[in-house]
Every structure is written in C-alpha cells, then in structure tokens.
C-alpha cells in the first residue's frame, strides 16, 4: 500500500515493532519458531492463523508476559527484549485480552481511570482525584470514545459481554499508545456490536498502529492494511488483505476447514 510505503521512507528504518528470530519454547514444544516481523509506525496489521498457530504467544512475547527463548524485540528502535511488561507499556505499547481481563468489582470509570494512572506519574498518588483531575477527564473522554458513557458509573460485573469488550479497548487506549495489540476483540460480539467495533477501530488516530488477531475475516480484513498468516508457530505468509484472501494455500489452511 502506498500509505505504508510513504511511511517507510518518512520514518527511515525505525520500525514501530521489529522482531528478529523470536522463538518461544514451552518445554520441548516450540510455540513460536524464528518469527521475524517488522511493523511500521501507524501500520494496521492482522495476524491470522488457526488455533495453536502461536498468535497469542506472539503477543505475550511482545508485551513481555513471556520472555522469548531467543531472538530480539525492538520497539521504536529500542531493544526491549529484557524489559518487564510495565516498561514496555510506558513506552507506548498496549494490549487487550482474548478473555476480558477487567476489574469486575470496580466501576467502568475507575477501570479506565486506573489505566490512565498506569501510564502517568500519578501511579502512586495517595490523594483522591479531585473534580477537575486531568486523568479523570482523560478517562471520561476514553469512555466516550468507546461509547460507554451511559454506563460509566456501573460496576463492570454488571456490563453485558459486548460492553466489556469495548471497555477492554478503552483500557488499551489510555495515555499515548503508539502500537496496540488487539487479541480477538470481536470474540462473542453480535453483528451490530461488530459494526460498532469496526467503527471504533477505523476511527482511531492514524498515528496509532495496531496488530489484531481476529478469526472473523469480515472484521479483520476491513480494518487492516496488511496481513500476516501464521501456521504452527511460524510466519507462513505476509501480504495485502486481498492477496491473502485469494491465496490458494491460505484458503487450504485456514479459510477452508483450517479450524481444528
């Protein structure tokens, strides 16, 4: 895509995310083998693959939840391979979870407020937020952005599944994200909610790039400009959405009965 090419030249060689030979072993099982990916700043990419292809493990290596067994991970040029997760998050990396990981006993607003605190200096503040608190305002804007204003004072445990998925996205948008990893954001959503999700994703500011794991091709291919296909822990194919969609090998593997 031209947009990608333009950015490539504009940013020189500083990729948003650069994985070189990342391998992750669980005992004798290789969940990821020699994965090399480059994602440009602002790029939006889908990662496809059947269950067990290593998509979520890839996310976990990028965020630092599991360190890779070998290989290097660079985030905007900086080698973050040995960094703990919170250090990566503070540099502008974000993620959402396949199974919502929220704080069910807290109000929606407090969930988002916590996310805003996490990437600010107010993390250890012993003072309660005042009415004009900057972070609280930021939290309210995020809640608006994901269409949850009406329920901002509800406890998360009271929310419908779709609303919880939207809240997941709000948490990932806190602060100044530069690259967001969405792990199946559409899982369990109704068609109407999927449309809403697509709208939220496509209306993100263009400097925010993301990588999205999504089984629903209608969602995935509508919100990305490039696709990486994984199989058995390896990169199988990379390309434009149309290329991947029409690739016979991909169809063999994934679109046609690829679900084990």
């Amino acid at each position, binding site marked *: 895509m031209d947009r990608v090419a333009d950015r490539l030249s504009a940013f020189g060689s500083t990729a948003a995310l650069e994985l070189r030979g990342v391998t992750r072993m669980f005992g004798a099982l290789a969940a990821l083998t020699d994965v090399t990916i480059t994602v440009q700043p602002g790029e939006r990419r889908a990662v496809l693959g059947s269950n067990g292809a290593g998509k979520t493990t890839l996310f976990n290596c990028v965020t630092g939840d599991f360190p890779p067994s070998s290989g290097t991970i660079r985030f905007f040029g900086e080698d973050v391979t040995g960094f703990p997760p*919170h250090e990566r998050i503070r540099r502008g990396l974000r993620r959402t979870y396949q199974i919502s990981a929220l704080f069910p006993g807290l*109000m929606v607003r407090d969930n988002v407020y*916590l996310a805003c605190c996490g990437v600010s200096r107010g*993390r*250890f503040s012993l003072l309660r937020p005042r009415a004009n608190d900057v972070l609280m305002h930021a939290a309210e804007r995020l809640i608006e952005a994901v269409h949850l204003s009406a329920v901002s004072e509800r*406890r998360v445990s009271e929310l419908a599944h779709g609303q919880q998925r939207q809240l997941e996205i709000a948490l990932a948008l806190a602060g100044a994200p530069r690259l967001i990893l969405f792990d199946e954001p559409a899982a369990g959503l109704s068609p109407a909610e999927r449309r809403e999700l697509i709208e939220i994703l496509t209306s993100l500011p263009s400097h925010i790039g993301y990588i999205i794991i999504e089984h629903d091709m209608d969602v995935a291919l509508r919100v990305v400009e490039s696709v990486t296909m994984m199989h058995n822990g390896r990169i199988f194919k990379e390309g434009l959405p149309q290329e991947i969609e029409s690739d016979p090998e991909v169809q063999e593997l994934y679109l046609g009965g690829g679900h084990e």
Partner: protein
Amino acid sequence: MSLIERAHLDADIRTAEPRPAFAVLSVNEHPAAWIVAVLLLIMPLIANGFFLIEIFGQTLILGIIALSLMFLAGYGGMVSLMQLTVAGFAGYMVAVFGVSGNANISLGWPWWLAMPVALVLATLFGTLGGALAVRTEGIYTIMITLAIGAAFFYFTNQNWAIFNGHTGINTVATPHFWGIDWRADIPFYYLTLAIAALCYFAVLYLSRAPFGLALQGVRDNPRRMAALGFNVNAHRVAAYALAAFIAALGGVLQVWDYHQISPGSVAVERCIDILIIAVVGGITRPVGPFIGAFIFVMLRTFALDFLVKIGLDGNRFRLLIGIGFLVIVFWSSDGVVGLYERWRRSGKPAATHPRGGGGHG
C-alpha cells in the same frame, strides 16, 4: 453473589450509588457509627481507668496493628504475619533510643526524637521484609513473614547488647508535655483514640485514591495491572511500607502503655493473635480489625473469670478464642463485618452487634 443481586436492585436508581462495591459502603453512612463515635468520645465519663486502658486502649492499639494487616490482606491480597513484629520493633526502638530503667542500653533521647526515629526504622524494617515477601505468593508470603517474626523473636531473646535478652527493657519513659502526663489514663485514651481514628480514616481514604485503587487492582489481576503500566512489585512493596508505618504507630503506643517490652511481646503467638483479630473482625473493611480487637480483648480479659466460674481451668481462655475463631471463620469467611452485612441485607434488624462496633475510631 449477593453483591450482584443487590447491584441489580440498585440498577434502576443507579445515580443513587455512584461508589463501587469494594472498599467503601462506609460505616460512616450508618447511624450506629455515629453512636459509636460519640460513645468513644465520651468514654472517660462512662468507664473507669481499667476499662479505658485495659479494654478500650488495648482494643484500639491491637486494632491499629491488625488494621495494617487488613490493609495488606484486604486491599493487596498479601497475608503478612510480621505486622506485630514491625510494631514490636518500633516499641523496642522507642525503648532503646528513649529513656528507660535500663540505662546501660537506652540512649536517653527525649520522646520527640526517639519516637520519630523508631517510626522511621520500623517502617524501613517492614519495607525490607515486604521486599522479600513480594517475591512470593500466597502461602509462601505467610511463611516468609512468619519466619521474619520468629527470627526477630529469637534474636531479641539472645541479643543482650541492644534488646537486653529475655528480660527486655523496663520502665520505659512516656511523654510529658504541655503539662500533661500522656500516659495518665484519660490523656492516653484520647491519644490512642486519635491515632486509631487517623489510621482508620487514612486507610478508608486511601482505598479510593489511585494508590489504593491500584493496590486492589494488583490483588485482583496483577498481570493486567502490569499490562496497564504498573510495576506490580513496587506497588506491593509500597503497600508494605505504608502498613509498616501504621503497625509502628501501634507499637509505639503499646510500649508506652506497658512501660516495657520484652521478647514475649513479639512472640510468634502474638503475631498469630493479630491474624486472628483481623480475620475475626473481617479484612474487607477497615472497621473489621477494630471489631476483632474488641472481641479478642474482651475474651482475653473476661474468659478467664468466666471459665473459673463454671469450674474450668482459667488458663484455657485461649480455647474459647480458638473456638470463637473457628465458629466465625466457619460461618463467615469475611468475619463479623461480613456476618453483619449479610444479616442487614437479608432484611433483619440492623442492631445485631450492639457492642460489636466498640472498636472503630
């Protein structure tokens, strides 16, 4: 599950309850809390010196120390058995730096110097212990903190240079200023009440501040907190530091109350007493530890007479405490506070524990 049921009831009038489920639903809103507050304030008019100090003073002091455990366990999910050890350490430091009958050991500093130094050192001690403990989870946290408590007990027993071995340090001086003897019954009661109130409201306030919210987040989902940019272990250590400061305040009051401190004051059984107090009272609310302390002190003081009266060995009073502990934990895993809340929610009259709130300051 009952919380959720309640939430559905409230859903229609959701503006009426803007606060989240945990941490709050404060006793402040309850009329019984006001009655207890007034009672505590006018207590010197009602109670004699024995009740004032031996019952209410002790309740407040043990309540403060147990509150530090409630803060760690209730908000942070970390069960620390060394909170009494931290308190005892502060007590020892007051005795060592201040004035006491053991002139060969005590440095003789005035109280206004010895006390802050004791608080700082004890906070440091608790923070270091916490830094060790946060490397572990669950039962291992309990083991490490228990080991620190046991080690400190044996150390004080065997160290004569600073801790004066098993005899401990006696006749510790207490503060006199503004022409008041602050260890006299009434001033000491009010001093203890003021510090207990301060700690209680501080913990209540913190539960809704970013630090406290984040601590509860760390308890519920540490991995997600890290993915939000929080350094989970740093947060936990900071919680230990705060809890250590609270426990140290209790320890200073304790040594002023008894005028002495010895290894017996920091024995492992004492550490476990604090756990019992917190669990019996309930670790979901800051008021729990004070209720637990009140029950514990009443049992400790009167169970002996009661047992003798019915023809049993008075020294078995711990058996009563143990049975009480068992009963409460069996019926209500969140202590008396939880028991009370379920009772109130099920529509029965609120006044189930007429004296139960006696401790909260």
